[in-house]
């Protein structure tokens, strides 16, 4: 196949010349000095380097994009021979692009991946450079929070550096709770169901879910499973000590269905995307919102910011430890093993990550970082909600990763759809388990 693609390329190059000539267009593109993945251009002298930095922060008005831009500009000013070319894409498109690039071994110098299972294939294929040596430079390793890098490590090598570290919490609207006469947020699943009923009777949408993006429902479901089983259910499935017909799993499915059947979620949840759902909460149309702590900033700045609070996900049927959370280690920067200038790229990423906490802190975006932050949040004007979330993050006693960070992509997709299905029809929990098991077995 390699040979034949080479041959095709020659043919294509021929066809290209001919057809361009036929077009009568002599517009030669003189600006072909781009370096895509560093693969096409031999840098004439080692001094001049262009680093392609694929990222998922396209909107210049968001804090993440501002932070990125600021550090990149700073670095370019200090290293005039280095040019950082930002390929900023929205998340879905970046995922698809990286997959296509990986399949043809054209990974850009820096790219973004998700932790654990979602990056394993890339690491196994040898596409990423190990970053251990770079982490030791300038004490970068010590800036990261305890244990966080484990999610990005394979065979004792770290392959990516995270931009954040989040946990799933339940945001709630204190004012709507008070209006409905609910004194305190629920601590058990039964209370949660009761509150759903009270809110619903008052004409308030109890909870919103952007289930068009299927991971949102899965995230909540997995938190229920974390309570009914304790941490590590999926790991036990992988080890072979448990399977999806386990009572803990079916119990979680049943609990989740109770929530759906009680009318906890807004109408039309499965066609509503993340943004639209979050907006319902942010405009005071819904009382609760289950989401990763990354949403804190946006909720904080919304109209209901002062009324917003968080509570820990309750116990389910008396089971579970509320200090265990759904963990969401952030998307992470990885360096291509085939990069033409690995050292220069490592040097840049080292600088980038060292600056990251400071600049994030100034942009009021530091509560969700994966790195330690020097600075007093309260003194810097972080809000009570931000402080509350920071408090929760400080007291996390373990938990689980999301389904798609733990299982392979094919099984994950079946799982995500299976949970989405629960929003539109009632299903026997045993058959949900069976569906999972079949998917897992056939995609091992």
């Amino acid at each position, binding site marked *: 196949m390699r040979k034949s693609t080479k041959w095709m390329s020659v043919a294509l190059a021929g066809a290209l010349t001919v057809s361009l000539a036929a077009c009568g267009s002599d517009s030669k593109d003189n600006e072909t000095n781009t370096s895509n993945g560093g693969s096409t251009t031999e840098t004439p002298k080692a001094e001049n380097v262009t680093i392609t930095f694929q990222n998922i922060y396209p909107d210049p008005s968001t804090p*993440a994009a501002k932070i990125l831009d600021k550090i990149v500009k700073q670095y370019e000013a200090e290293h005039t021979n280095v040019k950082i070319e930002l390929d900023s894409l929205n998340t879905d498109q970046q995922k698809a692009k990286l997959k296509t690039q990986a399949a043809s071994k054209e990974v850009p110098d820096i790219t973004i991946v998700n932790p654990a299972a979602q990056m394993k294939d890339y690491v196994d294929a040898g596409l990423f450079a190990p970053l251990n040596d770079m982490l030791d430079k300038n004490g970068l390793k010590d800036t990261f929070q305890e244990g966080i890098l484990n999610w990005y490590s394979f065979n004792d090598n770290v392959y990516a550096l995270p931009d954040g570290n989040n946990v799933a919490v339940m945001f709630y609207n204190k004012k709507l709770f008070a209006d409905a006469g609910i004194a305190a947020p629920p601590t058990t699943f039964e209370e949660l169901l009761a509150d759903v009923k009270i809110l619903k009777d008052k004409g308030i949408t109890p909870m919103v879910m952007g289930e068009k993006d299927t991971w949102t429902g899965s995230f909540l479901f997995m938190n229920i499973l974390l309570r009914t089983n304790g941490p590590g259910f999926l790991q036990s499935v992988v080890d072979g000590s448990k399977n999806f017909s386990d009572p803990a799993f079916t119990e979680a499915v049943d609990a989740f269905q109770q929530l759906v059947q009680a009318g906890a979620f807004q109408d039309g949840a499965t066609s509503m995307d*993340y943004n639209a759902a979050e907006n319902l909460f942010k405009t005071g149309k819904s009382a609760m919102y289950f989401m990763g702590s990354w949403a804190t900033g946006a909720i904080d700045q919304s109209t209901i910011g002062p009324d917003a609070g968080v509570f820990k996900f309750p116990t389910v049927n008396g089971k579970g430890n509320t200090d265990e959370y759904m963990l969401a280690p952030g998307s992470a920067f990885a360096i291509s093993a085939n990069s033409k200038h690995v050292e220069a790229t490592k040097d840049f990423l080292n600088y980038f990550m060292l600056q990251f906490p400071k600049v994030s802190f100034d942009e009021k975006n530091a509560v969700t970082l994966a790195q330690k932050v020097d600075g007093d949040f309260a003194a810097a004007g972080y809000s009570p909600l931000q402080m509350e979330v920071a408090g929760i993050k400080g007291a996390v006693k373990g938990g689980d990763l999301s389904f798609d960070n733990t299982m392979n992509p094919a099984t994950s997709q079946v799982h995500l759809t299976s949970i989405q299905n629960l929003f539109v029809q009632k299903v026997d929990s045993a058959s949900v388990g069976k569906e999972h098991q079949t998917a897992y077995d056939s995609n091992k």
Partner: protein
Amino acid sequence: MNQALTSSAASLAKPARKRVPIARISVLTLLGILLVTQLYPLLWLVLYSLKSNEEILSGKFFALPKSLQWTNYKQAIEAHYWQYLYNSVFVTVVTMVCVIVLASMVAYAITRFKWKLGPVVMLIFLMGMMIPVQSTLLPIMMIFKNIPGLMGTRWSIILPYIAYQTPIAVFILSGFMRTIPLEIEESAHMDGASIMRTFRSIILPISVPPIVTVCILTFINIWNEYILAATFISSAKYKTLPFGVNSFVSQYSSNYGAIGAYLVLGALPVIIMYFVLSEKITKGMVAGAVKG
């Protein structure tokens, strides 16, 4: 009635202007309703582009913005609007020109030249009409990475665009050319004109109507194309308008107002141009056996 008859030529093209008024009124009402449903999105888009995110996400079908959010436009223009617009225009125009030249040559060869492989070539092109782009991203990248200096440039999207638009263009153009009477070329041939000249100065000018059709189809397919462009273009220098639209969609937030503003800025020039040219376009556009 008499007046209608005497005012004449037009009434011949529109043979039944003198129908019963009731029919006319009901038809006009129907067409009017359609006009509203098809034009409303434009108004909606303009309103949308001036709203805040909260207003947009509240999902009201008809609502005016509380205060006009001109910042949406400021943000849109700051998101490389001029650069991307230039790239989009460049890519679209080059693609259109190449598609027309290349496809009309092939169509001419298939319908006019005497060679055994003609039908085979036609079939090969027919097969390609239906290939979904999403399924070919990877193989194309595999090929392109072996051609130095191609990946990441404008040509890395222009070439696939041309390749994907030619089948339908060949299909439409050959359908038309088949109906051009052969005598026209034969006489030119006898006067000593080369094939190339006959093609250029006789066939192409006659074929303007289907060429306009091909232009429109090509334009529609390329102006908003994002998946292929996003895969092959990395540098902001070469990105096209859909990148701008999508740049306001982040992982955990979307800036809908700015998206709307970007779409207005991207679509409005086209729509205005289209309305101005529409007379020419519809006049010029026709295909197939009508002339024959």
